[in-house]
């Protein structure tokens, strides 16, 4: 059976949807916004990705998992990493943000493009939705998160910080 280029393209994006961020396993690499381009030529697939944080140890693993998922589907993948334009949380999908919220991680508030990452933001608690929350630390359990505390339900929570 002959696959047209468009169907192949769609299939590859579908495969990428199944590759999860190892640190935030509810978020696919597509929803995270790290896939910058997909080029298909026959069985050869070139996937261009961009790192979230330069030192994030999950990036090597993400590249490896993308490679394995595509190989399992019979493709010959090449992963290329680019740095510019720099990844921003503005590229995270709405679906991704909702999944983060449901998982208990507050999604980014505001747009990185407005330099929202440098301001003191009101971040609603992902558990009880209260806005009565305080920043505990700009740096959290992974490079992409900040640590918050909810004054209402008294639970600490991670915030996927605007970047």
């Amino acid at each position, binding site marked *: 059976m002959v696959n047209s280029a468009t169907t192949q393209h769609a299939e590859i994006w579908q495969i990428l949807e199944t590759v999860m961020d190892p640190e935030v396993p509810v978020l696919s690499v597509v929803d995270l916004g790290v896939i910058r381009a997909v080029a298909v030529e026959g069985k050869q697939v070139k996937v261009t990705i961009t*790192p979230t944080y*330069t*030192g994030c140890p999950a990036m090597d693993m993400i590249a490896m998992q993308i490679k394995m998922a595509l190989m399992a589907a019979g493709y010959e993948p090449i992963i290329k990493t680019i740095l*510019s334009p*720099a990844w921003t949380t503005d590229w995270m999908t709405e679906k991704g943000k909702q999944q983060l919220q449901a998982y208990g991680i507050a999604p980014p508030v505001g747009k990185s493009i407005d330099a929202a*990452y440098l301001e003191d933001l009101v971040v609603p608690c992902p558990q009880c939705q209260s806005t009565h929350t305080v920043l*505990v*630390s700009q740096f*959290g359990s992974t490079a992409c998160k900040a*640590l918050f505390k909810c004054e209402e339900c008294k639970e600490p929570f991670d915030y996927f910080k605007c970047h």
Partner: protein
Amino acid sequence: MATTKNEIDFLLHLADNALIIGHRNSEWCGHGPILEQDIAITNIALDYIGQARNLYQHAAELINQHTDKIELTQTGKDISLPVTEDSLAYLRDVVEFKNLLITEIPNGDWAQTSLRLFLLSQFQLELFTQLLKHEDPQVAAIAEKSIKEISYHVKWSQDWVLRLGDGTEESKRRMQNAIDAIWAFTGELFIQPEYATAACLNYAAIQTAWNQKVSAIFEEAGLVIPAKTFVQKGGATGMHTEHLGYILAEMQYLQRAYPNSEW
């Protein structure tokens, strides 16, 4: 060719800065004053090591493209080609490192660590903003990526300078002591290295902007800039304090003892 050699040296200078400050910050792992701040300083260390990797990778690429006579080492022991980010980090010696002295001096107390990061990251923010216009698109891309992380470092360290400077008598004393101890190492930030020949660079402008920002924060925190002090310099050309040797001994031990080992 001279341009390439200069660009490689400049990349190594930036990479060494990032690696050594990253290493210093990582020494706080498990020793931070409270858990959250321990996590913060180690995250910052991770950002710097990530930046160092990007810079070393690009330097390695340029070095491998120009294998005809780029003298990498001054000690005569040649690093075998092709070089990698790892051989550049782990197999060069003290005199080959081009990091600024301010990155290698010991952490001291929490005041000194956060102050050093404030002075350095404020400088890097200005420098990397200029590098956005670098003619090599990959250098510009690394700068673009790094600026986002450095902005967080500036904010975090600035908060500590304010908090300690404008805090208790004890915290103020410590922050002022830190300034007095580190200030002599800040002059080197604005001495343009010979190999920093990119057209986009303007060290005088960096110094003006840095002075303004640093003075504003010190004023707000009630801290005093020491009267004229001696400027310690030499790091960018490979003349280091006694401290760098100890850092490299610890960092490079494994690769030196067991070449090419992986884990």
